[in-house]
């Protein structure tokens, strides 16, 4: 580990929740504006989490909180691996492990809505994971390395070669960010058939952990978007912001769709845009 990577990892651990929280607060304000409301203050997510931490720790059994802690830790670790400049595939796998812990936490509570939520979360993972891993493959094809720093320092801009992969990634990012139309397993507002889906039984502190982990996850996913711009980091940041704005917009102009359409469309997008993009690179441009 070099000094830079150490600093970056530490910065990630400290700053990611701050940035994630502000992004989430901004999200709520922008959403509110789109609904012609005023919306909460930008630091509202922090109030929420602090409040949740102060609430009584209601549990159905004493284990689900433990799984939530594992979920948080593995989310942070995958972020650390990313900012520490490790292998991108391993980062994604660590993120998958984190996701599995979340699902297990929901399973552990053994409550009907949480169980259905867990199953839906699995469906979401089934829909989203292929494209996320494929985007790492795409980056590898263009830059010749799975190394995060290697990709970030590459001389050209990967997105020029990978527009299809990028769009497809943005598509499944909506699933990962739990945004409408893909907020099947749990949604920000519990006006859905599953009450709060897999978070139904998480109360107080464990829900707080979920929120914090989600902030880390958001930052990590946006950082993956950022990778598509190689060493042009300003462009990357701008585009990451724009992408997030687009996600908010999508969130606000769509009804929640059903799992079948989600699965089919996500796979279709992965196959057509993602794999198609790689095929074209390989067969037409011989990269």
């Amino acid at each position, binding site marked *: 580990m070099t000094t830079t990577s150490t600093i970056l990892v530490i910065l990630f651990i400290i700053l990611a929740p701050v940035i994630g929280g502000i992004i989430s607060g901004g999200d709520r304000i922008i*959403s509110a504006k789109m609904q012609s409301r005023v919306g909460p203050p930008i630091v509202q997510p922090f109030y929420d989490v602090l409040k949740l931490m102060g609430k009584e720790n209601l549990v159905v059994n004493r284990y689900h909180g433990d799984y939530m802690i594992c979920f948080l830790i593995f989310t942070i670790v995958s972020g650390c691996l990313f900012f520490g400049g490790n292998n991108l595939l391993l980062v994604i796998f660590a993120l998958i492990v984190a996701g599995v812990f979340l699902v297990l936490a929901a399973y552990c509570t053994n409550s*009907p809505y949480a169980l259905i939520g867990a199953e839906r979360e699995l469906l979401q993972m089934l829909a989203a994971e292929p494209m996320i891993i494929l985007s790492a493959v795409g980056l590898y094809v263009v830059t010749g390395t799975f190394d995060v720093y290697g990709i970030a320092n590459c001389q050209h801009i990967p997105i020029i070669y990978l527009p299809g992969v990028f769009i497809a990634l943005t598509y499944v990012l909506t699933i990962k960010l739990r945004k409408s139309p893909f907020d099947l397993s749990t949604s920000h507002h519990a006006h*859905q058939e599953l009450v709060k889906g897999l978070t139904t039984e998480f109360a107080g502190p464990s829900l707080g952990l979920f929120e914090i982990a989600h902030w880390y996850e958001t930052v990590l996913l946006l950082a993956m978007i950022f990778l598509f711009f190689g060493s042009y980091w300003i462009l990357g940041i701008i585009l990451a912001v724009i992408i997030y704005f687009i996600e908010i917009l999508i969130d606000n102009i769509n*009804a*929640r769709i*059903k799992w079948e359409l989600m699965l089919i469309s996500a796979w279709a997008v992965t196959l057509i845009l993602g794999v198609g993009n790689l095929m074209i690179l390989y067969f037409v441009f011989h990269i």
Partner: protein
Amino acid sequence: MAKRTVIPFGPHHPVLPEPVHLDLVLEDETVVEAIPNVGFIHRGLEMLCKKKPFQDIVLVAERICGICSMIHGVGFSQGVEKVMDIDVPPRAEYLRAFWGELSRVHSHILWLGLAADAIGFESLFMHSWRVREMVLDIFEETTGGRVIFDVCKIGGVRKDIENEILKNRFSQQIDKIEEEYSKLAKVFTEDYTVCHRWSNVGVLTKEDAHKLGAVGPTVRGSGISQDMRTLKYGAYEHLDFEPVVENSCDCYARTVVRVKEVFQSIDLMRQVISKIPDGEVETKVKGTPKGEYFSRVEQPRGEVVYYVKGDGTKNLDRFRVRTPTFANIPPLLQMLGGCDLADVPAIVISIDPCISCTER
């Protein structure tokens, strides 16, 4: 084969503003069996007719349901008026129609919002209710209430609206509502994800709709023209309208029916504004009701039946309401069979359930 999932759906459930309960049996996410249970808010208010004089029952009737309270009042009053042979002044009838149509607009837009919410379309929900507030403003100005108005009484209405205000300000306000609403209507009928969630979901064929006794937009969405306003009660004798009918028999059809009915109601309000005669708004009520009558009026949710029976005392002998949601429960069960879990809220909402009506 896989084990089946059995879950309670409601009475406390965030998609349902009101407590209704379904035992859902699922396979994967497909509903294979649904058994309803109503009765969580059964109050037994029909029995109040034995404790309160018949004039006061109008207030009770209005509180059967807070969304269609105006029309409940009208329906009950008409029943008593028929039994007692009271002639309601035409202006009062027109005003009843005006407020009635206004509450239909209010109810339908409210429903559209809830329906959007049931399919997870948060911002559409917000915008629908934003438009609805403009409707409520008229109510608040004319009756003092936002959802419960207490303007209807036996023999007429309690309040009058000045012609000046009605013809100028309100007709402008209605124009504005229509303008804002048309934008929403477009989303409800054309948006891709909205159509995805509603098309071919909760299909109720024309035959089933008739056989199971569906009423209101539910039956009109299945291609049957049935609208109690065609009975020409009250001011509807002088107003022109055609029942809105859609033929695709699914949730989408029921939505489109309601979307179009809002325009229809706006049109009816304009007719009321242009045709409203001058005069008294109430007549004195003398005597006590003796006799019986089934008063049928069209609520936003469909046909409502009031049965009033008086025996000559100040208390009614029997006061009975059959609300549209009650009639729509058997069709609802039909629609739920074989749908997805995700469709359950959309389908339940699609009959515009009003549980407090149903259980009284």
